């Protein structure tokens, strides 16, 4: 009886292992974790469907590999927890690669975008450099690379500000600025450029603060998946699909910072 039980358990284990192994190689769908409010990388399009540069590239990768793409809007400041809890297979949404992610064991793709942080102010405010903002209030989006920078590499600069206000979306940061509740917004250059171009009375301070790179995060156990996606992206770069997507009008603000196209 005992032997039978052991055998049964062993068989279960074998099937279980076989199950996970085949799931990795015979993947049929791929869940992409995005910040749905991060144009032009990922956002809700005019037709109500998710779109953006990252979404289009991911769709092309899935087409290439024969996967069905599913898009999952993550809560940006808990994105890695949601990745770990299997709610999505990757976080791919203009995500800045942080050392802390690598230290925590996440598999990170090749960096594909060189990002720069800037300060956005009111055009008539007269602020021309980060030094002018000493003693002023600055808003930053919670969970973004800008916030991480102000806590870390740019902590000295942050200390000169009166207050660093964290908002849960970049739209709120800009609303605070336009409503005179803060004096500047610290944000990624492409986001700043696209917002300033569509809203009057704002200006980007011409000073690059902290250059960072974007990549895709996968779970620690998914090295193979990362390699698959990396290879597929390179394939897209080679066959011209990547450049074709990047050439679209809505991505004009980011095209110059795409690493694969400017090598």
């Amino acid at each position, binding site marked *: 009886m005992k032997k039978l039980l052991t055998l049964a358990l062993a068989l279960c284990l074998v099937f279980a292992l076989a199950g996970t192994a085949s799931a990795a190689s015979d993947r049929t769908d791929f869940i992409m974790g995005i910040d749905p409010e991060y144009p032009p990388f990922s956002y809700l399009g005019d037709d109500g469907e998710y779109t953006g540069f990252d979404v289009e590239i991911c769709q092309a990768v899935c087409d290439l590999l024969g996967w069905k793409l599913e898009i999952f809007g993550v809560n940006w400041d808990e994105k890695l927890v949601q990745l770990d809890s299997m709610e999505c297979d990757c976080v791919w949404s203009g995500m800045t690669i942080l050392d802390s992610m690598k230290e925590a064991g996440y598999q990170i793709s090749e960096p594909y975008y060189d990002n720069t942080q800037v300060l956005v102010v009111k055009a008539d405010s007269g602020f021309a450099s980060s030094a002018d903002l000493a003693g002023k209030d600055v808003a930053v989006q*919670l969970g973004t690379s800008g916030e991480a920078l102000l806590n*870390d590499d740019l902590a000295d600069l942050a200390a000169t500000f009166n207050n660093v206000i*964290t908002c*849960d979306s970049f739209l*709120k940061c800009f*609303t*605070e600025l336009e409503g005179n*509740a803060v004096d500047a917004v610290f944000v990624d250059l492409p986001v700043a450029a696209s917002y300033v171009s569509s809203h009057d009375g704002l200006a980007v301070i011409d000073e690059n603060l902290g250059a960072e790179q974007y990549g895709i995060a996968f779970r620690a156990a998914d090295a193979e998946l990362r390699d698959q996606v990396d290879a597929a992206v390179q394939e897209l770069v080679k066959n011209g699909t990547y450049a074709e997507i990047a050439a679209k009008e809505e991505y004009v603000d980011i095209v110059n910072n795409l690493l694969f196209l400017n090598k």
Partner: protein
Amino acid sequence: MSLMTMIVKMSEGLSKTCAIFFLTLLFSLPLGMIVALLRMSKVRIVSAVTRFVITVLRGTPLMLQLLAVTYGPYYLFGSNVARNKLIPVVIAFSINYAAYFAEIYRGGIESIPIGQYEAAEVLGYSKFQTFMRIILPQVIKRIMPSVTNEVVTLVKDTSMAFTVSYQEMFTIGKQIANSQTSFMPFVVAGAFYYIFNVIVDYLMGRIEKRLDYYR
């Protein structure tokens, strides 16, 4: 970051959490009574309008009301967004909780038998005296458990102030969680809320016992 620094950092935000909590109670408890009396008004139009306002306040998420109070004036009239977020936060919380308290008060007031009003009238009490000396003391006793319920909920709801960038305890917890890629701040936040509520529960229990003078 050590657990201790985490706790110290987050307890700095705790004073702001407490500010929302106490100010909301201070304003919403009396405001609720006014709303309850308007709701029970014999003038049809007054009670109908109050009823409508209560359905709006109870029927839409508090988070939405917070956004409306904070950013609504800017989007509608182009006026400035408040620099001190405590003001819009307390306004939104007080109005919302007043709606809930009003319904609790109404339930309490309507549970008092009509015979007591008649008896008071016979004894020569004015309407105001009847309400203040006979009805209200009994109402307060009866509604205490429901009020405790709301007060406990309020402690947890203060975390919603993060949607309008008010830097209270939970917002700071989220900031630490981000920069440290750690789940620990949420555990600390949970502990803070729980301890806060245990204290609230104890105090409300004490008050309930004090009011138990006829049993």
